[in-house]
């Protein structure tokens, strides 16, 4: 965190440094771009001070401590809200190996389903983004499919695919598909016409135009969709595991409910929250790395 802080000083500071560097880089001539236009500055994600970001990370911990105190003081009934210490104990009693088994199982399902759904979404979204005809043909169907709630798929998938891994991964893939599909579609659509024209100047084939210009230009949109898709994947994996599973955090959740163990239910919920946050952070880091060229966010590590 300290490294990150050093690499990315506050907005005003980084811009001043940038301007200084540009001046150095071009002492011989052109006036460097010193002042960022107001609109652009507004688009830049302003970084909150470090203390506040630390506080943000600590807030859930503080919340759990407060709950602990309230339960111990019998302000909250412990049959409805188990004390965080009890939750931790319950998870501990399950054993690291069992816990890891559930976590790995759910994560594997999310990974497989998200990968399949997102990949398919990129292909279909790109196709519809490039071809107005394909878009006109498929768009109404996809809109209708998107409107179907996740749980409605469960009986159908169980009927078609049995209770094996296939229906669960498929459900996650369905969940991941739509946000990614939508973002790829709008990303490809909104590529600056002037950049597409550059492709025409160089007489790029359709495929090369897509790979060299349309796809990279759409990437900022696509990443937004990927992050939404990942979050939805966690939702859908629980939906899948609630119904028919013998492993996974969704199973842990439903098992805790059936056996009257709210501490295990809350434990599973907390683990789901943690895993969702961790995978999103990983995706965010990947985004920052891949989109280092973007002019909107605070400058990356590159100097």
């Amino acid at each position, binding site marked *: 965190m300290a490294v990150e802080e050093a690499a990315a000083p506050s907005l005003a500071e980084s811009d001043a440094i940038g301007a200084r560097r540009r001046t150095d880089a071009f002492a011989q*001539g052109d006036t460097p771009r010193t002042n960022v236009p107001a609109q652009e500055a507004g688009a830049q994600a302003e970084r909150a001070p470090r203390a506040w970001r630390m506080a943000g990370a600590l807030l859930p911990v503080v919340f759990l401590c407060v709950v602990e105190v309230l339960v111990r003081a019998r302000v909250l009934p412990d049959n409805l809200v188990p004390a965080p210490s009890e939750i931790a104990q319950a998870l501990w009693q399950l054993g690291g190996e069992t816990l890891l088994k559930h976590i790995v199982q759910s994560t594997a399902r999310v990974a497989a389903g998200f990968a399949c759904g997102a990949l398919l979404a990129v292909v279909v979204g790109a196709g519809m983004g490039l071809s107005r005809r394909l878009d006109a043909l498929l768009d109404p169907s996809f809109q209708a499919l998107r409107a179907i709630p996740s749980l409605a798929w469960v009986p159908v998938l169980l009927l078609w695919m049995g209770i094996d891994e296939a229906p669960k991964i498929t459900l996650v893939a369905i969940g991941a598909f739509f946000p990614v599909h939508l973002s790829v579609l709008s990303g490809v659509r909104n590529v600056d016409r002037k950049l597409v024209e550059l492709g025409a100047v160089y007489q790029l084939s359709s495929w090369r135009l897509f790979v060299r210009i349309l796809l990279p230009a759409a990437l900022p949109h696509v990443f937004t969709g990927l992050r939404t898709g990942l979050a939805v994947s966690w939702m859908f994996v629980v939906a899948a595991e609630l119904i028919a599973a013998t492993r996974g955090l969704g199973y842990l959740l439903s098992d805790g409910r059936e056996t009257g163990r709210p501490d295990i239910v809350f434990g599973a919920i907390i683990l789901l929250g943690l895993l969702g946050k961790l995978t999103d952070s990983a995706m965010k880091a990947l985004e920052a790395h891949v989109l280092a060229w973007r002019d909107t966010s605070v400058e990356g590590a590159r100097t």
Partner: protein
Amino acid sequence: MIAASSISAARDPQPPRPPLVDIDIRRKHYGDRPILDSLRLTLAPGEIVALLGPSGCGKSTLLRIAAGLDRDYAGTVAYNGEVQRGPSPLAGVIFQEPRLLPWLRVAENVCFPQRARGDALARARSLLDEVGLRAEDGGLWPKHLSGGMAQRVAIARGLFTQPQLLLLDEPFSAVDAMTRMRLQDLLLAIVDAHRTAALVVTHDIDEALHLADRIVLLEPAGGARARPASRIIEVGGARPRRREDTARSAWRRILLEGLETHVQTSQTKA
């Protein structure tokens, strides 16, 4: 490129060599609005022609037609005597804004669409050097460049394919006055060094006077005189011309008068 012209000369041994580019537009309109009408413009190798005119007169459209980016017109564009539909590999295009791809580093932008490797990278580096940038600048993202630097990169990219003709659409209109003068001189140096011809669209009389061997004054089509739509004014004296040359004021006056008649006709129309 030299080989290409000598091949066409061998195939067609008659002495009258076709011009480098021959733009012959019979008609171009957007909807019902005529833009260009009966216009013919030829460029010889190494020649710089400026297209001057008020905004809306169709000068950018003419350039886009020459670049093969606009094919919706009646007429022909021929490079070295061969009719060209669509962009020609003989022409490099430099737009008003740099149009660098933000996800490619500067050197990668210069060799686009080739990958910045081996010979391509070496060529990109030498072109960057030629347009006044340092080798290290090749590793920057476009977002780190000033407007003038970015336009230099765009010029380097335009030169990468070794074009015989550079098509420039108001290339320096978005940079400050000092930078503009530097870039104008850079362009002149590059055109001389690479022996390319250049067609420069501009609305800046001084820029036209500074750069061009010939200035084509474009009048909006459908004005008081329906046609011809253009006047061609020859600028005397060999390049490089000095900015403080006194003969310039005479040329400037002629061009201003030419432009003013346009303004009057378009105002009476409105």
